[in-house]
């Protein structure tokens, strides 16, 4: 890879990393939700800097170019993360439903007590 390209890519990934740190500090996002992104970011930085071993890995897996392999791995990672998020949303949805129901029943009870 061209040296300049490596520098540009690493700078972008590091800036992204710093941005994630900032978000965590401001308490906008909890660690369990952002950890996977931090790990991915660091991995990508490693892949950019130490690109040579990746050729061997791609070769071993029978994938012709490193770029294809990276796209493939990235795609799988995103699918897993998305599925995980769907799961979390649905758990949270269930919790909101339970809260709403209990609140409604409680309001009914209080109304009766007041009367």
């Amino acid at each position, binding site marked *: 890879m061209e040296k300049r390209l490596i520098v540009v890519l690493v700078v972008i990934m590091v800036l992204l990393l710093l941005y994630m740190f900032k978000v965590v500090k401001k308490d906008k996002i909890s660690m369990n939700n952002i950890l996977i992104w931090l790990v991915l970011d660091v991995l990508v930085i490693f892949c950019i800097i130490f690109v040579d071993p990746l050729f061997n890995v791609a070769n071993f897996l029978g994938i012709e170019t490193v770029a294809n392999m990276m796209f493939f791995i990235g795609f799988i990672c995103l699918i897993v993360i998305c599925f995980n998020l769907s799961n979390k949303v649905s758990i949270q949805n269930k919790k909101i439903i339970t809260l*709403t*129901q209990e609140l*409604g*029943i409680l309001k009914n009870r209080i109304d009766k007590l007041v009367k």
Partner: protein
Amino acid sequence: MKVLMIIPAYNEEGNIIKTVKQIKEYKHKKIKLDYVVVNDGSRDGTRELLVKNDINFIDLVNNLGIGGAVQAGYKYAYYNGYDIAIQFDGDGQHDINYVDKLINEIVENDCDLVVGSRFVGNESSFLSTKSRRVGINLLSGIIKLFTGKVLKDVTSGYRAANREIIERFFGDYVFEYPEPITNLQIIKAGYKVKEVPVNMNERVHGKSSISFSKSIYYMLNVGVTMVIFGIGGKR
């Protein structure tokens, strides 16, 4: 014997008072009916109407959809020690005069869940549209396939549950399109489920909760869910 009518209501200002009046005026020598309206985050004047007319209701601050609203009713039944809970639509589709038949099946014949059915006997004046009947038959076929039991009106929202089923629904209920899926789950778990002929009317005010454009999604959603629960073991 404490019996609760659960009436889910979402934007039902046109129908709800009439529905509650039917229940209040229902007279039977053995049966006394309590009721609770579940206001599912209505955006019309339903809530104000309920307050003004001093109607017993659960006020849900979010719109949960029919499953979440009905489950709130089952939770109310559970907390207040009801022996039987009956789902009764707030839109005037269900006929109160058949309620004793549903209750009877639980009291006399030891049923766990009784489904009021349009397709058993010749009581019903309204049988739904042709395309919907095709869908209902398909879902009915899935139940037959996985349980061996015939249940014709799988989507009927006119159901009576005994205490055991109330406790079950308290813990676990399907939120999106509950009836066909819970029917399958209950039959599969080995409970006694029976279909009883009832009359249903066409809606007087408002729109049905399932429009035609949503029916493909409905069939896919419910069909796949039923197959998943059908394949799995007892729950």
